[in-house]
């Protein structure tokens, strides 16, 4: 029962490098989300998707891109890493329902440092 799986768990990038954070879920959830959590803060929504081929911006989308080619996978891409993107990134998924749907299930997070 894997749930939501995020890789890698930790990563250090240099300023200007790019990388893709992977997220996959095996619960057949239509809705998927990417959040970032800065130290001592709550989570902020970066992007979300309501199904394959459909994505939209959240609260803090600048500097990120997403794609959703399958129901299972929702990768998050950083094109030009900046120190302000140092954070812990969480992926989540849920079934459809009213609004953002049913309870969101979270992966264990990716801790990213930009130096």
């Amino acid at each position, binding site marked *: 029962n894997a749930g939501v799986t995020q890789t890698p768990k930790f990563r250090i990038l240099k300023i200007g490098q790019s990388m893709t954070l992977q997220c996959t879920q095996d619960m057949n959830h239509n809705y998927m*989300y990417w*959040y970032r959590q800065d130290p001592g*803060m*709550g*989570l*902020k*929504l970066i992007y*979300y998707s*309501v199904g394959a081929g459909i994505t*939209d911006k*959240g*609260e803090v989308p600048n500097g990120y891109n997403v794609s959703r080619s399958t129901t299972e996978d929702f990768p998050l891409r950083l094109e030009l890493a900046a120190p302000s993107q140092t954070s*812990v990134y*969480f992926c*989540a998924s849920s079934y459809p*329902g*009213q*609004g*953002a749907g*049913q*309870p*969101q*299930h*979270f992966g*264990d*997070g990716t801790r990213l440092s930009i130096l």
Partner: protein
Amino acid sequence: GIQVEQSPPDLILQEGANSTLRCNFSDSVNNLQWFHQNPWGQLINLFYIPSGTKQNGRLSATTVATERYSLLYISSSQTTDSGVYFCAVEGSMGFKTIFGAGTRLFVKA
């Protein structure tokens, strides 16, 4: 956008004590969730509760949507309850989930 305020920001309890955490929100919402983030950083969904009352073991939650608040009750607290409790709401425009800043709970043995 919707503002979410949680109180208290920090809470220290002796094991066995009861507590109430509060979440106020500034506008009508489609749904509301309570999460526990454990000391290892994992986020666990406790309740999906846009309105009404739910109970799960020692935890219960009540949302009064018309008055724009939700309460999370923890009874007979245990050291494993330590961590950060987040309230997250989704506004009537849909999908964009907004988290509060959290209540940091430490339960002493």
